[in-house]
């Protein structure tokens, strides 16, 4: 599950030590925007040591590297790939499949060099330009490493020559496009961050909206945001009970050789069963 992935500044020992304890599904150790240019070297060393020896429980651990248009990204990868606790790389400013291929090749070289199984490290691609959104499907299918695509927030707004609004109208089409591309490619659509960290109601509203669009989760920048996002994504008891009823009815129908049955007056067929299974997966009741 990737309901929440918490950004942790890569040069902040306090957050790198304690960040995983707040209960997000994943953590993102950030070497990009959260780190000043003058501290890129120290953050890289600190993050690599945490990946080598630090504790992250069962969280999915990724590192946001610097963009392939910077002088830092190769050193970032060289420092983090050999470390045992890395699950994947979050790549900023991916605007086409060629960016994925560049990263894929470099990761393959480093995996080979360090005795890591080929393809172990996943790619989480941040689509932060109009071009990136337009190429979403091609990006998502450019390598088997791609595990998720994620729309940018502020960078995308800047590229679209627009401003942040309360209801996020300016990103609505990009979000819909990204969900379609991700689902068509079989990767996770994950949403951008909600930057007003004290506006719990706003975060809840936005999370309900993106869940309805089909997103699998949302990046978060403050520990207080985790419980709200989980609450929205976790199925209610009524939803779980209904899903269990549907699965049981479908199983019974299959045993009787029937294709479809009726539950509470509504037809249960394959798509309904699939949605019920997804509900139980989100509830942690089905693998």
């Amino acid at each position: 599950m990737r309901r929440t992935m918490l950004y942790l500044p890569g040069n902040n020992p306090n957050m790198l030590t304690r960040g995983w304890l707040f209960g997000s599904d994943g953590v993102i150790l950030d070497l990009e925007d959260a780190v000043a240019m003058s501290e890129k070297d120290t953050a890289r060393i600190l993050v690599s040591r945490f990946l080598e020896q630090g504790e992250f429980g069962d969280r999915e651990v990724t590192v946001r590297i610097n963009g392939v248009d910077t002088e830092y990204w190769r050193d970032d990868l060289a420092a983090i790939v050999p470390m045992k606790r890395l699950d994947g790389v979050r790549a900023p400013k991916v605007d086409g499949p060629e960016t994925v291929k560049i990263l894929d090749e470099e990761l393959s070289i480093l995996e080979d060099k360090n005795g890591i199984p080929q393809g172990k490290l996943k790619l989480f691609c941040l689509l932060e330009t109009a071009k990136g959104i337009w190429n979403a499907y091609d990006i998502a299918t450019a390598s088997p490493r791609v595990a998720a695509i994620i729309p940018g927030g502020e960078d995308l707004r800047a590229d679209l020559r627009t401003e942040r609004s309360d209801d996020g109208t300016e990103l609505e089409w990009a979000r819909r496009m990204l969900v379609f591309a991700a689902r068509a490619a079989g990767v996770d659509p994950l949403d951008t961050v909600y930057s007003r960290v004290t506006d719990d109601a706003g975060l809840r509203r936005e999370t309900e909206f993106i869940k309805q669009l089909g997103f699998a989760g949302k990046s978060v920048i403050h520990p207080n945001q985790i419980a709200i996002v989980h609450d929205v994504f976790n199925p209610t008891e009524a939803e779980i009970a209904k899903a269990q009823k549907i699965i049981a009815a479908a199983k019974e129908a299959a045993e009787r050789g029937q294709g479809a049955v009726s539950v509470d007056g509504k037809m249960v067929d394959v798509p309904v069963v699939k949605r019920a299974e997804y509900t139980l997966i989100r509830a942690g009741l089905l693998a």
Partner: protein
Amino acid sequence: MKTSQAGTLESMDCLVTLEEAPSGAGVSIEITGASAARFKSAMEKKITETLAALEAKDLKVTVQDNGALDIVLGARVEAAYKRLKGAK
């Protein structure tokens, strides 16, 4: 003599300063701050081990500590040394 620094004085961090010492002087270590009294020997061991792994010699090491864990102290010493040597 060249010097370099890495780290901060924020909580759970430390500020490490390295200064080149004359050839043959060895490594001298001075630690002040939050954990200095209780964990001085463990911190000295970590610093010595880190510098040995980097094949560093003849340095004056000053650490202003604000509760840095072992792993952080090692990372800051490594970063300061790489800065001193002008490495990436």
